[in-house]
């Protein structure tokens, strides 16, 4: 697999540059609306990851790895589940069941509880983004002749 950019076509590069912000924005939108409408962390995360994948495809794997460093990805990957677990455990600490938001005094209000769900969704989104991009990088960025 080549190390450098896959394409030298200016058109592709430019369109990619233009496309990536809307893709990511859309991804964020999907994540944030996860708890009240179709969507959520998984879907949004994949959308954001696709923008990274697109970037890596067009500008090369090395550039992609530079933009989203392995260390950072490795940190972000487990973050979502940990957020998820922590919120769940906080519910248990307030003598509710796992993920029983109503047990937490602040979240007794349904509106605020919804925000808490968003928090979980954001966590999942982060994880999915990192994981999908990592899978892509792990497979595509691998040297096969070495």
């Amino acid at each position, binding site marked *: 697999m080549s190390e450098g950019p896959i394409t030298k076509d200016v058109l592709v590069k430019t369109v990619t540059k233009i496309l990536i912000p809307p893709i990511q924005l859309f991804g964020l939108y999907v994540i944030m609306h996860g708890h009240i409408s179709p969507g959520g962390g998984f879907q949004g995360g994949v959308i954001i990851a696709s923008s990274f994948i697109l970037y890596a495809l067009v500008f090369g794997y090395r550039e992609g790895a530079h933009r989203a460093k392995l*260390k950072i990805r*490795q*940190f972000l*990957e*487990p*973050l979502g*589940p*940990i957020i*998820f*677990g922590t919120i*769940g*455990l906080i519910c*248990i*600490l307030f*003598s*509710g*069941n*796992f*993920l*029983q*938001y*109503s*047990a937490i005094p602040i979240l007794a209000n349904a509106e605020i509880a919804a925000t808490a769900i968003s928090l979980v969704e954001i966590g999942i989104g982060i994880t999915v983004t990192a994981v999908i991009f990592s899978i892509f990088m792990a497979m595509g960025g691998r040297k096969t002749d070495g």
Partner: protein
Amino acid sequence: MLLNQNQLPILLVLIPLFGAYLAAISVLFKKKINNILSLILLSLSFFLSLLTANHVLTSGDISYHTAGLQPPFAIEIVVDPLSALMTIIITSLSLLTVIYSREFIRKELSDKRESYYYILVLLLTGGLNWFVIAGDIFNMFVGLEILSISSYSLIAIAQNKEAIASAYQYLLMGSIGSSFFLLGTGYLYIMTGTLNFADLAIRIAQLGLFNSEAIFASTAFIVTGLSIKGAIFPLHVWMPDAYSKALAPICALSSGAIIEAAVYALIRITLTVYGIEFITEIVPVKTILLWLAGIAIIIGSLYAISQSNIKRMLAYSSVSQMGYIVMGYGIGTQLGLSAGILHLFNHSIMKACLFFAVGAIAYKTGKTDLYEYEGMGDKMPVTMMFFSLAAISMVGIPPTNGFISKFYLVWASASSTRWIFAAIILVSSLLNAIYFFRIINKAYFGGGHEEASRDEAPYTMLVPIGVLAISCVVFGLAFNIPLSLIEPVAEKLMTLSLII
């Protein structure tokens, strides 16, 4: 409050599962922390599983609903004595695996893989716990997939090329199993509109679905799927290849917990969802499995005799031992069910001990073949002693737990006048004797008169082996401890009659 005992079941799942993610993060900051971290987390889970068992025995089954909803809408977790026993098996084995792995993995794997290894073990434990205490069939599927994926990876983590190929084979077969399971779930859902075990059972009975082809199909798919996972003959073909090349602690964990959990799920689903009459009279799952088990016991033992690679031999032995468990279940009486599950418990102790011991020998001497074991009794006396103890237990010599299983199984088949199965079990114990005494013979008495220098395995490996070997004897005498967890459930499952 954290100490609220009703919260125990979810913690059993959460601690290892989220512990895995914690391990994944903490390894970024401090290398080599994963061993300690997983040790702490798994000790905690083990302790909690004991607490759970105690709680279940003293104050009845726990039904836990996440998010404070009511079933069938919430994700329900049900812990009865049997699933508590399963979590004890799972957490104790993974705890011992982690203790054992400290030295073993450091030698076998690179540093980077070492940290992945512990993450995967934690994930596997979490998945297994989830799998055995899930109260609805779909969550069971998710647990199954978590444990499967981590077990594929754990088998492939060994640094030899055969391990990867066998892991791929395992992955293909295992995924078909999971797909079948999912499809069976789909059929159940389409017919009943629910996924919760208790609810499923009630609806199948209420809607009179016992003659529905879709329910038949779901039985077939679920049983086949779980049989692949549980290495039930003739769907065991992935196992010998995978075990002969995988790391020894993984073999121990897999043979001691993973396939056991699958068989447990098989028993649990068929008996709670479909009910004993259905699987006896309408779809003769039990009879089919009973005969397959009978064949498996003999064929597995014969294959084991023909192997010279000890890990491969133990894998075939597991095929035969799974047959024991399924046979107990297939006999179809309460006694048979207790016997099968008791053997499930005992087998996980014995087989894990054997795999650990074989791994320790390979660790010290690099020998994995039966014919290289000469003089091993002098070279590694303690390890070999524990190995022999577990091997004797496999043969079923009293006062070990293998004997108790054998006793119970023969009793169960005799009391239901299925003489042929009593004969199969007894003959199989002779076949076991052939291949286990062959190893003991080689190790202690097989030529090699020159005094070999003692070169014992490190303590971190000896302790798990010893604990398991001594448990073989302890539970051979105190078998009423596991039985106290098994029998109430066996009674409940067998009397759970829904065809009215």
